[in-house]
């Protein structure tokens, strides 16, 4: 069982307009404002701040899909392999100073959550045997 994370009480003064929008979002997603705020802070600290430094930008999925459709599978995989050797290491070193498999997978999970990529993770018989499943329309 995962150990419960230690928390500490902190008070913030927030622009009312922003707070109202956050309350609306928490109602819509049926989560408390506290859960939503923690999710925003965690996502910033664990992924977004490092991604920004590493050169990530937001572009529409359709844009990426359109560009990738100009390549055949072999060319597309070559691009993916090249970038997969550069960016994960850069991200891990900014976030945690070292590049290990565990830290890389952890950063990827934050990236997928932040990118709304639904995934399921199964840890098999031993902790070192894992299965990730992703599905979309």
């Amino acid at each position: 069982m995962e150990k419960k994370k230690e928390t500490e009480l902190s008070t913030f003064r927030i622009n009312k307009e922003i707070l109202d929008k956050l309350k609306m979002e928490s109602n819509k997603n049926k989560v408390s404002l506290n859960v939503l705020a923690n999710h925003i802070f965690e996502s910033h600290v664990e992924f977004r701040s490092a991604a920004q430094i590493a050169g990530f930008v937001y572009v529409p999925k359709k844009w990426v899909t359109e560009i990738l459709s100009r390549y055949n599978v072999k060319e597309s995989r070559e691009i993916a392999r090249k970038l997969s050797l550069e960016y994960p290491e850069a991200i891990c070193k900014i976030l945690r100073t070292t590049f290990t498999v565990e830290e890389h997978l952890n950063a990827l999970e934050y990236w997928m959550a932040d990118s709304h990529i639904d995934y399921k993770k199964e840890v098999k018989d031993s902790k070192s045997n894992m299965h990730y499943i992703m599905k979309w329309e």
Partner: protein
Amino acid sequence: MGINWSWQIAELFKTPVESLTKNEVKVDVTDSTINIELELD
């Protein structure tokens, strides 16, 4: 989102993990699903 998009994500797992562990990462990719099996030891 297409097979090329699926491979971009699959390689984000496969390439770095294989480089770090020297173990083969098994991937099964279609245009709408990705299955990835990793062995870290």
